């Protein structure tokens, strides 16, 4: 019984993380000593006013940006000690990204976009094709597989982006304002997709949002102000 009480090692462990842009007078402390643990299977929403550092925190977690100081351990590994290429491998095998602006390759079909991370995983063509199709099916877009992003609505593009994040079968999906460009109806659709992935597949999701309604889909809410974590509470679940 005593053993069960020991909390498992966090998947993501941030300790005293700072991110400083510029220097001297123009210095901006986007992150100022962030401590944060996220465990496997969590669905975390990060909120806060603009400039509170929520996106920066997300980028640091996703190894898209390097912290100025502090420790970041992913699954017990100190990320600062990794080379650029090793961080790329970490992203490749463990992380999936969903951006506010979708960031799909233009003039490239939905299916090819979803296949892209799989190419870098070294997957064969047929296998890749199957996995990408399956990921598109998960977000309900199998019938749009051969459309270019320009022929898809915002909500559909974001679902393609989610499928791309899922296709590599990551441990964590990092979503930076995934509903920022979408209306309420589409936003809810997207959130349902994410929620479903978290609940049925046990996928860890970290999401930045500025909409309280969307944050309620998560199970834990982190409120950031001025580059620090100010509140860290469970959300009351939306139904």
């Amino acid at each position, binding site marked *: 019984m005593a053993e069960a009480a020991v909390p498992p090692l966090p998947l993501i462990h941030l300790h005293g993380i700072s991110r400083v842009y510029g220097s001297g007078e123009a210095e901006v402390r986007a992150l100022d000593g962030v401590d944060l643990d996220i465990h496997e299977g969590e669905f975390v929403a990060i909120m806060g006013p603009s400039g509170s550092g929520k996106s920066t925190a997300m*980028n640091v977690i*996703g*190894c*898209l*940006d*390097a912290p100025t100081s502090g420790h970041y351990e992913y699954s017990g590994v100190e990320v600062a000690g990794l080379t*650029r*290429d090793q961080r*790329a*491998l970490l*992203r*490749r*095998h463990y*992380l*999936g*990204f969903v*951006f506010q602006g979708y*960031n*799909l*390759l*233009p*003039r*490239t079909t939905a299916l*090819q976009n979803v296949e*892209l*991370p799989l*190419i*870098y*995983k*070294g997957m064969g063509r047929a296998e890749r094709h199957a996995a990408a199709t399956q990921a598109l099916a998960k977000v309900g877009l199998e019938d749009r597989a051969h459309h270019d992003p320009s022929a898809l609505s915002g909500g559909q593009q974001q679902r393609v982006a989610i499928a*791309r994040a899922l296709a*590599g079968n990551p441990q964590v999906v990092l979503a930076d304002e995934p509903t920022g460009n979408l209306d309420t109806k589409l936003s809810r659709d997207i959130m349902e997709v994410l929620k479903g992935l978290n609940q049925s597949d046990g996928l860890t999701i970290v999401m930045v949002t500025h909409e309280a309604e969307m944050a309620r889909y998560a199970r834990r809410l982190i409120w950031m102000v001025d580059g620090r974590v100010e509140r860290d509470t469970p959300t009351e679940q939306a139904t």
Partner: protein
Amino acid sequence: MLWETIRLAVQAIFRNALRSFLTVLGIVIGVGAVIAMVTVGQGSTEQVTADVEKLGSNLLMVLPGEDAMEGGPPGTAAAMFDLRTNNLLEEQLALIEVSAPMAMSRGRVVFGNKNRRTDIVGTDNRYFTVAGWEIAQGRIFDPAELKSGRPVCVIGETVRKDLFGSIDPVGEVIRIRKLSCQIIGLLRSKGASTFGSDQDDFAIMPLRTYHNRISGNRDVNLMFAAVRDGVPTDRAVREVEVVMRDLRRIGRGEDDDFTVMDMKQIASMLSGITGVLTGLLSAVAAVSLLVGGIGIMNIMLVSVTERTREIGIRLAIGAQARQVLMQFLVEAVILSLFGGLIGIIAGLSLGYLGATLLAIPFRPALGVVMTAFGFSAAVGVIFGYFPAQRAARMNPIDALRHE
């Protein structure tokens, strides 16, 4: 992975069809223009040399004035020759087989309602021998016509075609300047010379006719002489110079007031001219190459933002910087090779077409092909690769947010 990289690159090429097309176009224009122009230039240089050799190395041209062909306005100060000079030259020098006196000017010839500006030449039958003209129709001058300066003429093919069309010219009367002149013969066509100047564009009349009715003086502008077989050209030139100094009464220590040229000199002068021409063409071609290069540069730089974001996306989803760079490098190399190949084919085809139309030999130069191709490919690769390299060095998030 290399195969996969190539596939990615090919995919990217087709995805960015317009950018790819413009890049290829830039390379094609650059490479094609250079190859075509240099090929034509080299072909014409070779043709000139061959033409002059065909003319025979045993021909000499004597012109009034020092450095008549190279210096300033020819024969400005020097007195013209006359018929006597020509004949004395021929008589006194055994090594001169035959020398033709020639007087000429430009003028209009008219037949019916057609007219043409052409070279009007006064000479005698010796000219046909020296220059190797054959009669296609009719005859050359008879002694009486030469002696009394009758208004008769022999015309070249171009004049016939222009004035007569399908009519038989021999026996017809044309007007040369103000002189009505009966055509007695037509020369067999020699076609265009190397420079495209028409060798058949003239009307020839007896020297006496020319003197009496056209020029109103007794000048001979040029003596065209054939040296006997087996006589070395430089010796012939030297001896002609000695006789000419004597005939023109040039004292010891005074400069010649005439120029003797052999065909070798003419050849070197002509190939000098074609050399200049080739240089000029090459300069134009180099500009095309540069323009092509700037085109490639432009299209690559314009697309930097899009490419930077693409690199950001690829890095975010787990590509390593060198994989992305390899893809861009392969893309640039494929485009350059493809464009270069089309450019080489286009350039050689154009060069071949040009050579055929100008009736000159087709002489592609490997060095030029390689240089043009190398330059364009380098521009394509450098401007395709280095912006990508910069992007791949950024933090992925900065590349993603690149504006």
